[in-house]
């Protein structure tokens, strides 16, 4: 497989990863963890360790979820992916996209997310109290798992697209997806390390939350529409559908 053949699948994986990156729970948790660690006068080196562990936790979970999903799909549909699976992926992307528009942020000041308040309070308490790298790593893991209802759509599409690539390119695809999905965390950590005030970061997030919400929802709907046209409509038109 040449780079020219791999470029379209990798572009779709990139787009799915950017949709994943626009979800905000992990970023909120990292903002909170950093704020409270600085408020406790945590040493600079320890703060860097906590942030790194959090990001590694989120990255490892994202990579594992994507790999597991791709592996399961590969084992389940050995020859080719049936049309109904592409249809499910399309429905999932469009459904999640509309849900993002409707419910992702609560109608309150701040960046309050859709997650149930009891669970949000638990995550907030754990983020405040995180004092070791292991706790921060677990929080990174939890942040991704807690948003599974939303991230499942870009993950599923990326996993389906990964199956069209050869093993070497699949590894590159997983790495690319993971790196892009954690980009907001890398940006927040860089800003914190450079001495940027958390209030400025949080004000920016609050001021742009509707835009981010629109982009995330629209991105998923566009992704769903592309999959529908490229894999369902095209296959049906050519009479290649395998239902």
């Amino acid at each position, binding site marked *: 497989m040449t780079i020219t053949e791999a470029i379209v699948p990798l572009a779709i994986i990139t787009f799915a990863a950017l949709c994943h990156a626009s979800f905000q*729970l992990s970023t909120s948790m990292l903002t*909170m963890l950093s704020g409270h660690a600085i*408020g406790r006068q945590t040493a600079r080196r320890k703060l860097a360790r906590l942030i790194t562990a959090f990001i590694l936790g989120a990255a490892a979970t994202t990579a594992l979820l994507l790999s597991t999903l791709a592996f399961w799909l590969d084992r389940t549909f050995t020859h080719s992916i049936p049309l109904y699976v592409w249809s499910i992926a399309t429905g999932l992307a469009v459904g999640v996209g509309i849900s993002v528009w409707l419910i992702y942020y609560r109608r309150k000041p701040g960046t309050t997310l859709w997650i149930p308040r009891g669970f949000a309070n638990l*995550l907030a308490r754990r983020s405040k109290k995180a004092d070791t790298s292991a706790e921060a790593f677990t929080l990174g893991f939890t942040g991704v798992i807690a948003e599974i209802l939303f991230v499942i759509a870009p993950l599923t599409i990326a996993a389906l697209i990964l199956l069209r690539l050869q093993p070497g390119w699949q590894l590159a695809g997983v790495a690319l997806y993971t790196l892009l999905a954690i980009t907001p965390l890398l940006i927040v950590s860089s800003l914190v390390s450079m*001495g940027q005030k958390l*209030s400025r970061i949080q004000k920016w997030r609050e001021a742009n939350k509707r835009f981010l919400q629109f982009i995330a929802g629209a991105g998923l709907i566009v992704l769903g529409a592309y999959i529908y046209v490229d894999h369902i409509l095209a296959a049906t038109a050519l009479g290649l559908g395998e239902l």
Partner: protein
Amino acid sequence: MPLAVDVVKRYGRRPMEKFDESKLKQSIYAACLSIKTPAGEADSTSSAVVKSVIVWVGARPTVTSSDIRRVTSTHLERFHPDAAYIYQHQKSIL
């Protein structure tokens, strides 16, 4: 001498507790530090804000924790707008 004021916790789910000025001062101090204010400035700001809040609290037998947060943010805003923002929005980040 501690103020004999009862604080009704958020949504009234947890039992009431006595107003604790050291707890209030600590939370303001942490909010100041979280936006990288020097420790000395954070200490003087938190002391000044606590004094203003005590005047407000002292006139009431019972207050809610949300009221304390709102009044504290208003006073903190005069000294340190960024810290006031973080203090006020702590509960609405997630």
